């Protein structure tokens, strides 16, 4: 590693931490391959988005303070999630509009926080994908990553370098899958209708693999795929980029 | 307190003011109105006369107006007759009482009759002028007036608009300025009772989001575009 490697604080996200740690390890592998030194603050739990979107502003502020304190020492903070990275980057500053000192710290952290694929492509200018996976994948643009952070071209560009992988066009890739955090259990009928639309699109595209950048969306779509008996499997895009595409897919045993 | 005072008072309070805007702000607002500066004008509204004319025709045809470009004023009556014949339309037209329209050599087409009046329910074809053509979307600017009854632009199922190519401008804003100038020159109060930008015939997409030409307004909009006229 270079003498002063870029120090990245990995914000692993609560869903990855709890449900699919291998995504966190994929993140570490890719960040180290790009020349970063990765640290994982042990006190991290959640970015506070559930409280924030639930209207519980006070708890969102409190959680944000903790996150800022835990992560403000790094060169960059990287998350395998457009949703969590978007929360920190786009929404943390506004949580402290009436607290200039905190606002300044939030601004500083926001400026250094990135969703992982856009970090690798746009900040590290890294394209050293050394991965292989046969199959036909379709990429779904998770809403926060797409609209809050402009993640669109980067995952597709990196996936193009995965040997053996065909990436199918998904005309409705920018349409919400219906996860939306608590939305998916508050309005399950609507959430399910949107998942059904996504499933039909995937079948029509002839994909055997669904890739995306947010585990929440992936668990929701994957859950629907399994319930409907679809043969399409789901992974986080960085699992494939980190050459972990052979491991069990989401919701698969092993 | 009446409703007007109540509304204005609440607006002021909501804008954190005890009363109307400051004298300075009122002056700025008044100047803004008086100057009526254009905001951003798209590049497609720029170009020389030939470019704008071509663009006007292209946009108009895109929205199902038909455009017949004729070399000069003498060709207009024949162009009208051709249009009517091609759609099996009657040769009785209701026409704007417009001296500019009268000036075309209608005697060349003795079978055409033009009644100069406002529209009636039984009218089938109207013929009017157009104040201006606007290239950026292929639109016609028409107005109400003694010489241009608004009903003729809307009531008959077929509307023929005679537009001089020299009256094509690029942007909506230029069109408004020209109308302002012309009406000032004529001693008329700007604006007229109605001004309409007409872009194509009437249409609706209320049935399953499919666009169908021809609803309450004209089902056909035929533009006779007259080149080479000098004032």
């Amino acid at each position: 590693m270079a003498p002063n490697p870029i120090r990245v604080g990995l914000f692993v996200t609560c869903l990855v931490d709890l449900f699919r740690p291998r995504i966190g390890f994929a993140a570490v592998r890719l960040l180290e391959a790009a020349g970063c030194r990765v640290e994982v603050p042990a006190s991290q739990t959640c970015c506070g988005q559930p409280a924030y979107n639930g209207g519980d502003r006070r708890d969102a502020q409190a959680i944000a303070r903790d996150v800022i304190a835990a992560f403000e020492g790094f060169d960059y903070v990287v998350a395998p999630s457009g949703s969590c990275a978007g929360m920190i980057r786009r929404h943390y500053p506004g949580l402290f509009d009436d607290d200039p000192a905190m606002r300044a710290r939030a601004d500083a952290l926001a400026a250094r926080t990135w969703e992982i694929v856009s970090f690798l492509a746009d900040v590290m200018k890294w394209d050293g994908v050394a991965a292989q996976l046969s199959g036909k994948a379709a990429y779904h643009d998770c809403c926060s990553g797409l609209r809050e952070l402009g993640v669109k071209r980067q995952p597709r560009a990196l996936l193009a370098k995965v040997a053996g992988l065909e990436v199918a066009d998904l005309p409705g890739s920018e349409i919400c899958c219906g996860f939306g955090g608590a939305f998916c259990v508050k309005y399950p009928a609507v959430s399910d209708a949107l998942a059904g639309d996504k499933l039909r699109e995937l079948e029509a595209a002839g994909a055997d693999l669904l890739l995306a950048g947010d585990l929440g969306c992936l668990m929701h779509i994957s859950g629907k795929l399994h319930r409907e008996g679809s043969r399409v499997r789901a992974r986080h895009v960085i699992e494939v980029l980190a050459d972990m595409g052979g491991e069990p897919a989401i919701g698969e045993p092993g | 307190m009446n409703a007007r005072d109540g509304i204005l008072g609440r607006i002021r309070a909501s804008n954190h003011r005890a009363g109307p805007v400051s004298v300075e702000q009122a002056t700025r607002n008044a100047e803004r109105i008086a100057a009526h500066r254009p905001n951003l004008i798209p590049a497609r509204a720029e170009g020389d006369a030939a470019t704008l004319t071509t663009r006007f025709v292209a946009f108009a045809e895109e929205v199902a107006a038909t455009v017949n470009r004729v070399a000069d004023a003498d060709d207009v009556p024949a162009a009208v007759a051709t249009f009517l014949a091609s759609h099996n339309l009657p040769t009785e037209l209701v026409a704007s009482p417009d001296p500019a329209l009268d000036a075309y050599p209608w005697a060349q087409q003795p079978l055409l009759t033009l009644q100069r009046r406002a529209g009636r329910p039984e009218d089938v074809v109207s013929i009017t002028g157009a104040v201006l053509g606007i290239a950026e979307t292929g639109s016609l600017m028409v107005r109400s007036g003694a010489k241009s009854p608004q009903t003729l632009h809307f009531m008959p199922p077929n509307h023929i608009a005679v537009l001089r190519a020299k009256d094509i401008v690029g942007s909506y804003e230029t069109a408004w300025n020209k109308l302002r100038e012309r009406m000032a020159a004529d001693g008329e109060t700007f604006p007229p009772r109605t001004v309409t930008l007409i872009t194509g015939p009437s249409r609706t997409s209320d049935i399953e989001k499919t666009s169908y030409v021809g609803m309450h307004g004209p089902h056909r909009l035929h533009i006779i575009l007259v080149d080479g006229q000098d004032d």
Partner: protein
Amino acid sequence: MQPTAHAFKEVSRQKIADPDLQRALLKLKTDFRAKRVQVVNRLPEFEALRDEAKKLKDHVLENLDYYLETFERNCTAAGGQVHWCATAAEARDTVLRICRDAGAKTVTKGKSMIGEEIALNDHLEAHGIKAVETDLGEYIIQLRGEPPSHITAPAVHLVKRQWTETFRALHTASDLAPDRPLDEPRQILDEARAMLRRSFFAAEVGITGANFLIAETGSTVIVTNEGNGDLTQTLAGTHIVLASIEKVVPTLEDAMTLVRVLARSATAQEITSYTTFSTGPRRATDADGPKAFHVVLVDNGRSDLLGGEFREILRCIRCGACQSLCPVYGAVGGHTYGWVYAGPVGAVLTPALIGLEEARHLPEASSFCGACESVCPMRIPLPSLMRKWRERAFETRVTPAATRGAYKLWAFFARRPVLYRAGARAAIGLLGALGRKRGRFRSLPFAAGWTATRDFPAPEGLTFLDQWARRR
């Protein structure tokens, strides 16, 4: 109309299962999305125009009293009469009075959302005046007794078969043979045109809305495709314009900036067939036109909204793009929202106008995908405004106690890493063990909301942070 917003969840389930509605919504989704992208791409200046539109409207809101007074002065100078109405009731009564003074028995109407909001038609009908909707979409929903389901496409919830059925059942004129052909759209349109023509010529009063009010000239502007708004206002003896107060813009040039983004966003057109600027009654030298011109300015809560955290919704130009692009709207249709305004704009406006208690589901039933904000020509931050409603609901306990408790419980643990880790270790360890064999759960206690329609992927069993700690 009587709000049914509180029934959002139940209605949404019915609507998702309604095959006609779903077919109709599919047409909206497939056609409009693609066409909008095409027409937007054709105007390279679109993004810059959105910025200008936002700026100009923000300027207007800061000076709203000034521009309304200027509008009034110039409209009056042109021979118009301006009426100020603070409430829906005042507006209804004002319109009724004008109609009575004009001896109206029949009134033709162009499309007006503010008219829906103040429930004008019912009021006129209750006083013996027939109000005929002339916009084709509004016409059929009036026949069917339904509210509009979309701002610019009020009958978007209907499939063609329903048009045929409705006209056959409810067009009872004696010159219409019951077995006449009515399956082709052209036949449906021609019949509607013929029916409405009678009303255009009979009406004593024509009522339109206004997309914009122009302070500079005292003009009102309507933007239509059908030509009904123009026939409505030109043929009747009296023209009434109904407009909410935030519709004013300073100059004609400002209106054209908004026109450039409006049709593109509403109907994926460069511009609609007719954009008409009306100023006062007919002039002495005019050959046609109404003899009386009234503008009824309606506040109905806007002046209050102006002073609060939802001010930005007042930039709305009623294009309906947010509705057309919203995935939730696209799944459940506009009637599910239970009042006049559906979709994202409805989610922000409805609680302000009819109360958060009644409308609480509307800002909640969003995944915050952000599609609405990304297409709003006026750059209204719709998800942020919905979130503000959620904050109000949380603070005022409109949000149910169980939900508030759940967020607070999660936050409690999230702020206490030691407890969080211990709890996570236990819960994830258990779930992981239970789920190892199949990799997923078909059902889970406390998670019926998820597992009713989806499997739940089993966790790996050891959290990332625990695994990371072990590897270091």
